[in-house]
């Protein structure tokens, strides 16, 4: 097997976490959760999309660790419900998209990706509601939430436009600083 290998398919030895990585990913998952709590009062403005994209472009496959550390904290605090199923897959979609576009440098490109994710958030969650209530219910649920998705889109766009590029540089330096990356 030659050529560029996807970090989503790295060898077992490379998947192992160092102690520093374990600490870093735990802290980042916790910080993501904390930042979301702090911003909870702002209507549909959340930092999670921004952080998930940062994790994906900085850590590759290992982004799964801070992402699911965050998801686990959500489950522990809010318990398990239908939305829990959404949280199991929805951040992976954004992480995969960010990783595929990792070569992109323009902040507008990242802002657009984050904005589209916010816009499609309800649509991406809807299949879970189709399983429980049928497709008509899922579509109706998605449409009734469109104003919230529009706000989510705008919030993600602005937050990512301002913060993604500087935070990406910071995350790269941090990861190299602990002897990784």
């Amino acid at each position, binding site marked *: 097997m030659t050529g560029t290998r996807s970090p989503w398919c790295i060898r077992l030895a490379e998947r192992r976490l160092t102690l520093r990585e374990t600490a870093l990913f735990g802290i980042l998952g916790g910080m993501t959760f904390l930042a979301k709590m702090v911003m909870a009062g702002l*209507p*549909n403005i959340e930092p999670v999309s921004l952080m998930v994209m940062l994790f994906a472009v900085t850590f590759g496959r290992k982004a799964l660790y801070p992402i699911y550390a965050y998801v686990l904290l959500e489950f522990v605090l809010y*318990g398990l419900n239908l939305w829990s199923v959404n949280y199991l897959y929805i951040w992976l979609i954004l992480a995969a998209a960010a990783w595929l576009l990792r070569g992109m440098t323009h902040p507008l490109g990242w802002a*657009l990706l984050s904005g589209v994710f916010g*816009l499609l958030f309800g649509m991406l969650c809807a299949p879970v509601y189709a399983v429980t209530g049928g497709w008509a219910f899922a579509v109706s649920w998605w*449409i*009734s*939430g469109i104003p919230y998705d529009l706000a989510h889109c705008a919030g993600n766009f602005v937050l990512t436009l301002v913060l993604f590029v500087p935070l990406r540089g910071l995350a790269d330096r941090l990861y190299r600083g602990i002897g990784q990356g």
Partner: protein
Amino acid sequence: MKKNGKLIIAAVAVLVLAAVFAGVWAATRPAASQGAKTITVEVVHKDESSKTFTYHTDAEYLGEVLQAEGLVKGDPGDYGLYITEVDGEAAVYETDGAYWAFYQGGEYANQSVDQTPINDGDAFSLVYTVG
């Protein structure tokens, strides 16, 4: 220049998509009637006791009425008001999986109270539910 062109096209595409979504929502939104309307809200408590409240209102959406009358308290959620307390009784999902289920005309509603338009004669229920 070529990259900027792609970004501009992408930005326009996102705007168009957002406009289409907004159009779908506006076209399918149930219309609220204006003027004096009478509605009933049945509250079924944890002990299964039930109270029915009747309101006369000009408000367009149920959430405005319930909050103005002090019947419900809640927090803004990702998809509208998440009701935490009704008629003085709190449901704490984190503690025992309890929540206030919202029904419109006997059917489980798929939108929050603040997204629910009011028409004269509408009947709603808020039921303390566990699990």
